């Protein structure tokens, strides 16, 4: 095509290609940010569940320890 020889048109085509490249990079950055947020939330919810289970276990162990050990008298 004859228009391709025009340096201005070539520059504009190159600029469009650059902008597409920049758009791909910025959308990838947004995807990474979304992934980090969702990973953070999911980890926190799992850690909270783990915390609950740990607390319940600790209370049970404490009770069993009290049952098994010979208690001290009040006097």
């Amino acid at each position, binding site marked *: 095509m004859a228009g391709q020889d025009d340096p201005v048109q070539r*520059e*504009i085509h*190159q*600029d469009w290609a*650059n*902008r597409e490249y*920049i758009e791909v*990079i*910025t959308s990838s*950055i947004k995807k*990474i*940010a979304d992934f*980090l947020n969702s*990973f*953070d939330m999911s*980890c*926190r919810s799992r*850690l909270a569940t*783990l*915390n609950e289970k*740990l607390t319940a*276990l*600790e*209370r049970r*162990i*404490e*009770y*069993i*320890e*009290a*049952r*098994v*050990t010979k*208690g*001290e*008298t*009040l*006097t």
Partner: protein
Amino acid sequence: MPLVKRRIEPRHLCRGAVPDEVTSELECVTNSTLAAIIKQLGSLSRHAEDIFGELFNEANSFYMRMNNLQERVDLLAVKVTQLDSTVEEVSLQDINMRKAFKSSTIQDQQVVSRTSIPNPVVEMYHRGDKPPPLNILSPYRDDKKDALKFYTDPSYFFMLWREKMLQATEDKRKEKRRQKTSCPAHCDQGRPHTRQAPPRSPLFSSEN
């Protein structure tokens, strides 16, 4: 208004002004945009490191707790094998003299305090404007109060709650004294026990 905890800087990629002496403006804009993208990647990696650091610290604390629990379970397993019902002597008096079991109820306190503040919020706090230096006027006050506290006082809500609690305990004490002096003989018969919940901190008061 919710605060944005982590912000990726720079927010805008192509908004810088093009210098006057540049001939190929399109290339200049592309290059400055790519430079801003690299800065954004740096900011993103810093935030990612912070996120993983927080998760690691929490998981680490659970690991320590679990280790502790494992040791206790091992000790218990050994102790249980050593139990022998034939050897153990139980006298009726001793059963009543034993201390009753009470589990340790540990409540979390000062959850939202200066020590537990996350790093991005600390940075946001330091980026904010400082209050005006009104404390330089404090020596000129007659009542010797801190002049800045009239403008902004971080401890205001805590002091308010503290006064409410002190007032509540004082009222309860006066009520008890009044009940004792008014009817000492019938104070525990037929009088409905009114349970008054202690006033909670104003930070958690429900809005009606």
